[in-house]
């Protein structure tokens, strides 16, 4: 940087200064460095989950590039002549052959395949956890709604990348996965068959789909993903990070470590740690053993055929739909056993995408929020989140219904029927339980803030009575407990014409649902008052 302080100049620092100045005079980069370098990162572990996603994506890009050097998506038919004995002489596509060669004949190829696949699983998992963190701390509120939607798009893109990726080797498992997607497409009324023929270039499976998925997987989707990711980062810098409340941490500032030099070093180290974890897992644990699955052939289906975990909820939704839901109208069949799960899946995703706008409308809150909520301080939102997680988790679990049946000695029917019931009952229970737990925790916080915590020290008074001494919190601790915004339900107000519209009523009812049960944080007066009386 050109702003150097007056210190005795060594030869090294003179060179650095000159080089920096040379660059700055030609690129004006110092402005950007100054701006970016002072980006503040709060130090709470849950704020690093998005970074994990970013770093696994870098690992995916690196390992994926290696894989493209050797993988050939061609559907030309060949006979296997490679190293793996139980496949020798077997009829297969070049795509599958080259995936096997990549695994058995390219030096480090199998490791890179496993790195790529494990990193992909970690990528989507860390995105999921990052989204949950943002949701439960209310970090999606104004001004970050747009970035929530961008993040959601990234999540969907990551799933699409995953699906197109694991379909490429043209093995039995991935072919079965494609067949399910084909079935879902064909289940759509009117357009379904057209879309299916368009995607597969004719009747399933054909020879078009693998090269097409390859183009999507290595070109189109990554390009969109990178652009969206860049946008996500830019908005992250523009909006700044949220932070948990604390003394000196307000809605107007961000307390933490600037990116340069400290955080950048830490983040660099963190990248290598994530890389290391992925490498270790990929070294020691098999993933997607395509040599077991054999080449794709539309006739066999293996027991225990499941998609990768992030597509599991879709597979589970299909498994949970009862049989015999086909309706025949005017010679057409409406397969509701497929349509209803698809509607549920799309519905769930849409609700996730637009949740910030829904909540903003219900609460009528137009203020900017830079303080992350503790989940207990937004009981209704936390409860909605828990219900959503339960709904997702039941569908997710349903994808492994057969494995649960064999490993826990249950009947398939028992597992499916239980999960069918849980799909509806589970979210309701989760909602009620979570809300009560949140309110209970809030009450406990209020109690502790006002009266301190029980010290376990029992004192006998001169009169003979026993009391337990309560220790007071220090100011820092108390700050954490009492600083949250207290919302009240919206009032029904007539509009400009003096009328109360139905929308107004609905909004007020929803707002009441959101904020009716609440624990008011203790006021300053209450705390002072409690303090005066607290000295036993």
């Amino acid at each position: 940087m050109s702003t150097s302080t007056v210190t005795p100049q060594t030869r090294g620092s003179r060179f650095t200064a000159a080089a920096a100045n040379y660059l700055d005079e030609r690129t004006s980069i110092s402005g950007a460095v100054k701006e970016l370098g002072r980006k503040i990162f709060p130090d709470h572990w849950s704020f690093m989950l998005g970074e994990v996603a970013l770093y696994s994506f870098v690992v995916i890009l690196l390992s994926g590039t290696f894989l493209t050097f050797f993988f050939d998506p061609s559907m030309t038919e060949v006979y296997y002549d490679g190293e793996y004995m139980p496949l020798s002489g077997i009829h297969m596509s070049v795509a599958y052959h080259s995936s096997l060669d990549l695994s058995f004949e390219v030096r480090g190829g199998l490791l890179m395949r496993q790195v790529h696949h494990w990193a992909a699983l970690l990528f989507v998992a860390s995105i999921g956890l990052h989204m949950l963190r943002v949701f439960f701390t209310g970090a999606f509120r104004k001004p970050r709604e747009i970035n929530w939607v961008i993040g959601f798009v990234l999540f969907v893109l990551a799933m699409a990348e995953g699906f197109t990726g694991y379909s490429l080797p043209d093995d039995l498992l991935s072919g079965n996965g494609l067949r399910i997607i084909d079935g879902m497409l064909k289940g759509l009324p009117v357009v379904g068959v057209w879309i299916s023929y368009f995607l597969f270039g004719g009747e399933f499976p054909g020879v078009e789909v693998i090269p097409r998925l390859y183009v999507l997987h290595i070109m189109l989707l990554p390009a969109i993903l990178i652009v969206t990711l860049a946008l996500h980062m830019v908005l992250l810098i523009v909006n700044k990070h949220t932070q948990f409340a604390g003394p000196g941490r307000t809605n107007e500032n961000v307390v933490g470590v600037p990116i340069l030099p400290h955080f950048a070093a830490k983040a660099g180290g963190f990248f290598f740690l994530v890389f290391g974890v992925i490498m270790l897992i990929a070294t020691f644990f098999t993933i997607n053993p395509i040599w077991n699955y054999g080449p794709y052939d539309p006739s066999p289906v293996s027991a225990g055929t499941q998609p990768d975990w992030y597509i599991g909820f879709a597979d589970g939704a299909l498994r949970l739909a009862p049989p015999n839901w086909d309706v025949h109208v005017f010679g057409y069949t409406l397969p509701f056993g497929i349509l209803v799960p698809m509607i549920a899946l799309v519905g769930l995703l849409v609700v996730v995408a637009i949740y910030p706008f829904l909540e903003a409308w219900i609460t009528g809150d137009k203020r900017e929020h830079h303080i992350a909520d503790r989940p207990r301080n937004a009981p209704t939102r936390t409860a909605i989140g828990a219900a959503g997680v339960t709904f997702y988790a039941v569908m997710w679990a349903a994808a492994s219904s057969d494995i649960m049946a064999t490993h826990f000695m249950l009947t398939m029917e028992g597992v499916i029927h239980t999960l069918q019931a849980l799909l509806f009952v589970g979210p309701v229970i989760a909602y009620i339980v979570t809300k009560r737990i949140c309110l209970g925790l809030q009450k406990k916080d209020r109690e502790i803030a006002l009266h301190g915590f029980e010290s376990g020290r029992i004192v006998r008074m001169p009169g003979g009575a026993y009391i337990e001494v309560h220790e007071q919190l220090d100011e820092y601790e108390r700050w954490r407990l009492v600083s949250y915004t207290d919302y009240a339900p919206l009032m029904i107000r007539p509009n400009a014409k003096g009328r109360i519209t139905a929308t107004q009523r609905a909004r007020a009812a929803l707002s009441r649902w959101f904020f009716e049960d609440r624990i008011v944080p203790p006021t300053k007066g209450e705390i002072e008052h409690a303090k005066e009386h607290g000295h036993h």
Partner: protein
Amino acid sequence: MIGLLSTGGAYAAFGATATADETTAVSQSTLDEGEKLFAANCATCHGAALEGTEAGPSLHGVGAASVDFQVGTGRMPMAFDGAQAERKPVQFTDEQVKALAAYVASISPGPAIPDEEYLQGDTDAANGAELFRINCAMCHNVAGAGGALTEGKFAPPLGGVAPEHIYEAMVTGPQNMPVFNDMNLSPADKADIISYLTYVDDNSSPGGFELGSLGPVAEGLFIWIFGLGAVIAITVWLTAKAN
């Protein structure tokens, strides 16, 4: 009795092509021991004359292979009446199992215990793998990890199952398994399938630990629990305040 034995023995010898060459005569003392064992351990449910009772099916036509499979894998005698008989520690010595099998075959001929030549596990594993994917994988999973059937029944995992038991299962169709007779899968095909399963048993995955060969479910659980767990432990460590 002797007439029954000789006709039964001859039928057993010609009944299964796989054992057409096997002409080892079964001694009378073996049959006697088998009869005693049967009366003590099997007759309660299967009837003294193998005719079956309300508690168990008739054994007419089962032959030696079925007995060797059911008793030799510990499935019989059954511990309790469940959705299907489970593999458990074998209750008899090998001689006792063979004696029981010989006795049952002598009264009720059927598929015989397979010839050694089909059990070596050194034939065409690639053909075996393909046949396995087409005929077996829908219940037993491509890697032989097992799978669920309806009403609590299941196709058991095939790891560590003795070759003769695999062969016997194919020819007799125990529990819910269909019969793969010699018209369907020739003895050579069966030998190839055994070779493939032997290969899977003998060779660990080139990619590292297999996680039970359960596919994406095991992989997903692993990344969530251990992968993400390790990464979160690192984030907590990185943001920990120095005390």
